[in-house]
């Protein structure tokens, strides 16, 4: 079992995609079975979702991007505790659409939480988070001692 997030929307064009999808589907069934999708309240793990995340490391900073379409920025909380970055929040369903006659319901709602251990220490007082067009971007500058240093080695 790997820790790669399952992505239902990524599609291939050729006939090979059917085989690929079948294998992925079977992997997912096994992963879910062994993960045990039971929530604290005893319900099956349907009320939560996991937003997709990118974390890029640059020389001087980490840049974390989180896909949060339709989430209000007031409903997102970002915390850092000894190098563990946690993004949690809730995506609320628009109240006026709750009772409508649905033909398709593919978008997910509910609580989410993701945590990541950053590989080196960051300057916790200089962290910035910006939410725009459904993407949360968190910039975490590295601590001075974590930045790459160029060391000249004298050749004798």
């Amino acid at each position, binding site marked *: 079992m790997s820790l790669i997030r399952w992505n239902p929307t990524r599609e*291939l064009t050729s006939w090979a995609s059917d085989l690929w999808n079948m294998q992925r589907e079977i992997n997912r069934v096994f992963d879910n079975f062994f993960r045990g999708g039971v929530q604290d309240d005893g319900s099956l793990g349907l009320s939560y979702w996991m937003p997709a995340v990118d974390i*890029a490391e640059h020389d001087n900073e980490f840049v974390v*991007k989180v896909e949060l379409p339709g989430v209000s920025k007031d409903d997102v909380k970002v915390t850092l505790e000894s190098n563990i970055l946690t993004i949690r929040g809730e995506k609320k369903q628009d109240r006026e659409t709750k009772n409508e006659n*649905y033909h398709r319901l593919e978008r997910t709602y509910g609580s989410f939480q993701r945590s990541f251990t950053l590989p080196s220490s960051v300057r916790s007082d200089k962290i910035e988070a910006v939410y725009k067009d459904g993407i949360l971007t968190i910039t975490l500058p590295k601590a001075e001692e974590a930045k790459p240093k160029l060391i000249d080695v004298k050749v004798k």
Partner: protein
Amino acid sequence: MGNNNVALTRRGTNALTRKVEPVNSYVTPVADVYETGEAYVVKLDLPGADQDAITISVDQNTLTVRAALPTFHREHAWMIVHEIGRKSYFREFRLGEGIDRDKIRAEFVNGVLTVTLPKVESLRAKEIRIQ
């Protein structure tokens, strides 16, 4: 569930009749489709899209949404976690009769595109008063 006037076409199902898009150049965004008394509403998650880079087109029987995405990361980044990688969004919806094509409108808020397709007058829900 009502008359299915806004059907969905996942790309791939029409591969033989449509121009095939380049492999893996886009992802199919998830969508909610619902119906009110006055209209059909399509909501699509397009996180990261630029409002100006979204194109919505309606031809005889298809609603097409495309969005090219701006570059997501600076060069020379070392990706520690990489789940989002994508270049553009593309999705088609088959439309039935009874949509007032001149009054279709769209808005883009927090990465969610909402397209409202009003029904023609004769198909709208009406309250009938008892005489």
